[in-house]
């Protein structure tokens, strides 16, 4: 049975903001997957995008600008039974948080990262974000952008993410599917969500995206990286959406850990019995045997 995943909090976004599309697709994906609210954790950074967890009735951790990924990593590593989803802005994930973005790929930790790709810093009033192309001048900029854009998908590919997809905030059916695929993937998944910012980005509007989006059809994402890289060629004026890359061979982070971890994760292990440490004196001495000296007197 589908659940309702909304909360009673007033939604802060500007009327018409693409984030409404994202949150409603998320509700739908959660419903279809029947996500358990207590076992699902949305982790976000700071930005318009970062407010998302307050509007979803699963656990939410609204963190610091740029740090959603490491917060989420700690949660997931300590309790792998939770489904952990990161929502970040493009500034959040690829500007101040770029180092963590790259590092998550190296771990292939089973987390879905959804990037609200609006090409501006929404919440701080419209500065250029790392996905805004050079020479573009959006509304709040005093002169055209002088930094080049990063390409999020190739970057994620290089970083080691094993599931890559892109969708559009205004195409709820498609986005919902991509969210589901990202959640279901076992490993680090990255979903680039094209998100119109109606207040500050007067260039990459809904129409702009609609005109350029080309949905991947008949594309088997389990491909070689080179092929994927080539497919993502940025020189064309098309923006591909869909499930672009998938690698199920590479072990996820928890598979890389010891057997013991898989059986009992850090959050599940008991640490005391009647208030006394599980690691009692006897265990202590045998565990740290090499440090124990028995003086011969």
């Amino acid at each position, binding site marked *: 049975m589908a659940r309702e995943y909304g909360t009673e909090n007033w939604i802060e976004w500007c009327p018409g903001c693409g984030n409404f599309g994202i949150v409603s697709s998320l509700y739908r994906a959660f419903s279809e997957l029947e996500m358990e609210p*207590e076992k699902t*954790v949305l982790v976000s950074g700071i930005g318009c995008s970062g407010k998302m967890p*307050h509007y979803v009735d699963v656990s939410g951790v609204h963190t610091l600008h740029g740090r959603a990924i490491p917060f989420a990593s700690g949660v997931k590593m300590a309790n792998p039974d939770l489904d952990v989803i990161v929502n970040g802005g493009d500034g959040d994930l690829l500007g101040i948080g770029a180092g963590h973005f790259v590092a998550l790929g190296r771990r292939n930790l089973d987390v879905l990262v959804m990037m609200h790709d609006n090409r501006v810093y929404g919440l701080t009033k419209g500065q250029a974000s790392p996905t805004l192309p050079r020479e573009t001048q959006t509304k709040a900029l005093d002169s055209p952008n002088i930094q080049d854009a990063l390409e999020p998908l190739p970057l994620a590919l290089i970083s080691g993410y094993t599931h890559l997809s892109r969708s559009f905030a205004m195409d709820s059916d498609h986005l919902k599917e991509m969210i589901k695929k990202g959640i279901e993937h076992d490993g680090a998944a990255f979903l680039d969500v094209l998100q119109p910012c109606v207040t500050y980005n007067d260039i990459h509007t809904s129409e702009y995206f609609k005109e350029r989006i080309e949905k991947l059809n008949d594309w088997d994402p389990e491909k070689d990286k080179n092929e994927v890289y080539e497919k993502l060629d940025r020189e064309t004026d098309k923006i591909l959406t869909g499930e672009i890359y998938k690698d199920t061979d590479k072990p996820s982070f928890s598979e890389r850990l010891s057997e013991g971890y898989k059986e009992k994760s850090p959050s599940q292990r008991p640490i005391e019995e009647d208030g006394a440490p599980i690691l009692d004196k006897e265990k202590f001495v045998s565990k740290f045997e090499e440090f124990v000296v028995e003086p011969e007197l």
Partner: protein
Amino acid sequence: MNDEIDMILGGAQGAGLETTVQILSSAFASSGLGILADREYYSNIKGRHSYVHAKVSSTEIPRSLESSIDILGCMDAETVFTHFEDVREEGYIIYDSSVDDKTQDEIKSLEDPLRERLEDRFDELGVEGTVSSILDHLEEEKDVEAVELDFPSILKELQEKYEMSSSQASRYVSSILIGAVSGLMDLEKNSIEKGIEKKFEGKEKIAEQNMFLVGDVTDMVKEEHGSPLKMEKLGLDEDQLLMVNGNEITGMGKMTAGLGFQSYYPITPAADESLFIEKHAGEENVLVVQTEDELAAVTSCIGAALTGTRSATATSGPGFDLMTEGLGWAGINEVPMVITYYQRGGPSTGLPTRGSQDDLMTALQSSHGSSPRIVLASGDHHEAFRDAVKAFNLAEKYQTPVIHLLDKFLANMVRTVPLPEIESLTIERGELWEGGEDYRRFEDGPISERAFLGEEVMWYTGSEHTESGNVIEDPEKRLKMKEKRMNKLDLADKEMDEDERAIYFGPEDPEHLLLGWGSVKEVAIDSIESLEEKIGYLHLRTFSPFPEEKVLSYLKKADKVVAVEHSYSARVSEVVSLKTGFEIENEVVKYTGRPIYRDELVRSMKDVLSGRVSREVLKHGP
């Protein structure tokens, strides 16, 4: 017979000194001797001068070091140049006679300022400047006996016996020193053997070769010099001891406390704690994660803590700076997490492998805005263990981050200590959610019932928030929530015994008071005992919540109060002044990054207590 021996063993970083010290310490310990050994080294992997400064005792576990020594064991000429003046009257220098003719000019790794001082000193002493000229001088002036050993020919013998290459043989220099010390002190052969076997577990051949060399040199030395430094063998009154450094004992404490997750980014002198835990993760299965930086270390640690896992990270100054933003988030979100903070010489990269206590204010005040934090500081191995456990209990009890302050001295200080009294420890997890409807993470106060992620739906945010953890800007809610959080510190202040937060050592009704914290503890205690004046030592163990009453009561009664610290400006005086308004007028500080020696502290205290000076800066130690 002696009941105490002071020694320095020195050599180039990476040349085997570590092995020497491990084997000797283990031999001392298993002979029932107490040992305390400070490790000094450069921020360098190979080639710079490093040394171990130790005290061995047959009557107690030593608490502090002396600046002068009975034995100087030199793996190379640089050690002779660096430490020759520290050898006491009638002391011993073990050295390689093949470097007799070396002068300091040939030693490229010597730093220029020392080189210049040596030149002046040689002029003053009328010494020519070769190694042998120095030894001659010491013999004449101080009756210091040189234990001459021809390292190359000793190694040659080994090389021939075991058919190794000369470069292989050169790695055995460590055993020459062991043999010589063993000879001078007449150590039991089997205690050395045990040490060697432990060190080279699984490598029998190497163990055998080392044993051969040690035996060989021991015999040579005994023959030539006898065993003038043989120790009484009263032994310590314990059947099991630990021999550990501060990193290790802290790691043990954290694991005993039930640590489940430790994140870290490598940094001296904190990293060894994490590596220790990783290595001993064992069936407790502590997850130790090397993150991409300290921003990730602190934030992943917080994430893990939210799942109910006892979580910590360990770092030193530069890393802590990067953690301060995360610390504020943990504060406003009432997250129980522990930062184990090993101080080293600052500012900036500073003296990265040297000790300091200069980060007290940093630990107390970093991170913008205000939220409660608990700050503990340990002064020795025993305290480090207990505080490591306590840190988690307090973090969970008050649902707030705890900073556990340690430093490089303690981190690398090897010591024999009694087994920790695990029986007396409790694990306190604070108020936990017992289930029910409509969970709200920040309900009631000052302490809310805590549920873990995975148990209930809940929200966290670094913004000011409602009881549910949702963003709010309403002024009255702001007042309420801010007060709720700040009140936790007042509560902790009420509940935490002041007698555990500040401990007094010394005579009843002291005339004067020495005030300190962290690793000045033991040298301070030893020093007050050596002073004629009736003086006590007040040892601060908790800086937040600050034990204001107890501290003030001691300060007010004292005639003179002297702060002692490894820093430029005696941070502890600043904290005392901030918390109590009491201005401490005297201070003894050291900021060379080398430990405070008992004799220099005693000397400086005399100067201060006599009123000649109000500030003394200590300098001993190369």
